């Protein structure tokens, strides 16, 4: 049948068999190896899984900041600087890592400084690179402690008994002291000031949504940003909240900017549906002016939820104890957003 000479055919067959045997061995090796994977060694690798981007170089390597320059007067390095990326952040902050990695975390640089006079007085500096201002504000705002001293000279900054916390552009920064000693608070302020001077940021970045909240009754420094799953509803993303003290009531208002008016309307509808499906009861609005905004009022296990859409904004009130106060604030918020929506259109 074939015109190839017999010796050549035998050689071809032998070569083919050898190649096939090698392929079979390779396949067997792959099968054996994958059945023997050791999760304790390889575990989860978010970079390989494509969940996060490959790690950037540390800030120091990028030449963006010199940690030595941050040493406050009378302090020395207590330990070597440490660098973490999304893959190993858990090695530093364990169960708190998801708060950061789910908010755009890029890297963390830490360093400890101790007093040259008393080594028991030390502080640890954490510089979280969160990729942009909004992400940095999100992790800052969600961890913000109650009853703190707001620092007036920086937009997002506060101090507690033993620490100083602030946002600097795309960076969220913590200075955590080993004690509440006043001997630490001054050096902390020096280091914070040095960071603000030394660490370059994009000064054109702003969070415009925060200006849309009405000022009357607003609790200073009480804003939060939920990048995902606000109020337990997974589709409610990029939601800013603000705390209000109105008469004796504490009320939370929220705003989220959507793609356009249609998208905002759909989001308001789906959030309303989520509330009803989870046990909420729709209530008629009692505030006449609020009717203009087609706001939906829901009694949610004794608290009042309000949701509406104005232009590209979905907004409302969350977990208010008093319905009347909630509707009044919602009406003011809707009016403010209408002005903002008009300004955006222009």
């Amino acid at each position, binding site marked *: 049948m074939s015109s190839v000479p017999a010796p050549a055919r035998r050689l071809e067959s032998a070569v083919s068999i050898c190649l096939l045997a090698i392929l079979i061995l390779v396949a067997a090796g792959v099968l054996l190896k*994958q059945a023997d*994977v050791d999760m304790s*060694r390889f575990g989860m690798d978010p970079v390989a899984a494509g969940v996060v981007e490959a790690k950037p170089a540390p800030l120091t390597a990028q030449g963006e900041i010199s940690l030595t320059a941050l040493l406050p007067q009378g302090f020395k390095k207590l330990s070597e600087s440490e660098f973490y990326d999304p893959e190993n952040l858990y090695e530093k902050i364990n169960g708190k890592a998801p708060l950061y990695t789910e908010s755009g975390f890029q890297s963390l640089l830490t360093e400890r400084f101790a007093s040259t006079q008393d080594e028991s007085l030390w502080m640890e500096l954490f510089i979280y690179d969160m990729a942009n201002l909004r992400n940095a504000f999100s992790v800052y705002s969600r961890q913000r402690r109650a009853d*703190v001293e707001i620092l007036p000279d920086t937009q997002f900054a506060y101090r507690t008994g033993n620490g100083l916390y602030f946002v600097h552009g795309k960076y969220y920064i913590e200075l*955590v002291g080993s004690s509440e000693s006043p001997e630490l608070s001054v050096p902390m302020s020096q280091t914070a000031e040095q960071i603000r001077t030394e660490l370059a940021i994009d000064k054109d970045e702003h969070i415009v949504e925060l200006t849309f909240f009405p000022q009357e009754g607003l609790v200073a420094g009480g804003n939060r940003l939920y990048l995902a799953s606000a109020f337990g509803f997974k589709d409610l993303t990029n939601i800013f909240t603000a705390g209000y003290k109105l008469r004796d009531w504490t009320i939370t208002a929220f705003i989220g900017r959507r793609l356009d008016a249609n998208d905002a309307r759909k989001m308001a509808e789906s959030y309303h549906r989520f509330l009803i499906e989870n046990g909420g009861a729709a209530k008629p609005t009692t505030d006449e002016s609020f009717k203009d905004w087609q706001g939906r009022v829901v009694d949610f296990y004794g608290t009042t939820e309000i949701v509406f859409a104005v232009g590209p904004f979905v907004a409302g009130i969350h977990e208010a104890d008093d319905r009347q106060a909630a509707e009044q604030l919602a009406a003011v918020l809707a009016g403010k957003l209408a002005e903002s929506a008009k300004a955006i259109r222009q």
Partner: protein
Amino acid sequence: MTEANGKKIGRRDLLARIGQAGATIAGCGLASYLLYDPTGPEARSETKDLATLPDFSVPRKAGQTISIVRGQDRIKTVDKAIELLGGIERFVKPGDVVAIKPNVAFASPPILGATANPQLVAEVVRLCYSGGKAKKVIVTDNPINDPTSCFTLSGVGKAASEAGADVVLPKPHLFQRTTLADGKLIRNWPIFFGPFEKADKLIGIAPVKHHHRAGASMSMKNWYGLLGGRRNIFHQDINTIIAELSMMVKPTLVILDGTEVMMTNGPTGGSVSDLRRANTLIASTDCVAADSYGCTLLGLAASDLAYLAQAEKAGAGTTDYESLKPAMATIS
């Protein structure tokens, strides 16, 4: 059609070759289909040389399973809590080697409450020696951060050493693989086994903390420090791993410190503002019961923490701590 050498290929030969090529392609496709594993590889399955943690528990005594003592001074409250359970002599016998596993997960100062309180650890060491006549007390943990920094900066290393304990830091040779019978996650996984291998008793000491992922970190979560390897993978199923740890570790006693409770930003905290004084200390031979009471200090109910129900279902203890008739006391 002609071959490269110019010779003609007949129709039959061509059809035969097409058939062979088709059969090869179909065979490869079939083999790929049969070999395709949509679930991915599982952990190693060999079972040789696996370590098993000893059972350190002591026989139960009615009314002496859990004690809850209120007071500001940890040394007084822990003394009283152990006394209410029958005294340290019930747990530590003369000549015993006692392993104490405090939560020293982080290189953070004691005032943050992210780690076990150093004075509390020292007092338990002292009790083991003085009341229990222990031969040796080991204080050990496999921290999240650098171990030396953790034991130094938390103050636990110095306090434990001064009280006479041997502080053991994790080293590679101290890890061995284990598999938890009926476990889903702890399968052929390295655990920090060395310090416990020859111990007679095991005491856990943990602070009550909020935990961003698990809801709360208390005595059961404290055993997370026994895991080696890339244990962060377990954060994907945090409730199951905590429940499995409570099945794997059968301690002699756990001490849950709710003197100052980390209410927010756990498990690391970072500010004294995260803490609330609850002035409560719990001692128990039942981790599940201890944590079921401990979570109330965080404003949670046992039903809010899925791992408690899972551990109870697995037989690790009871969430109905009241049924154990806790021994209560207040220290002024």
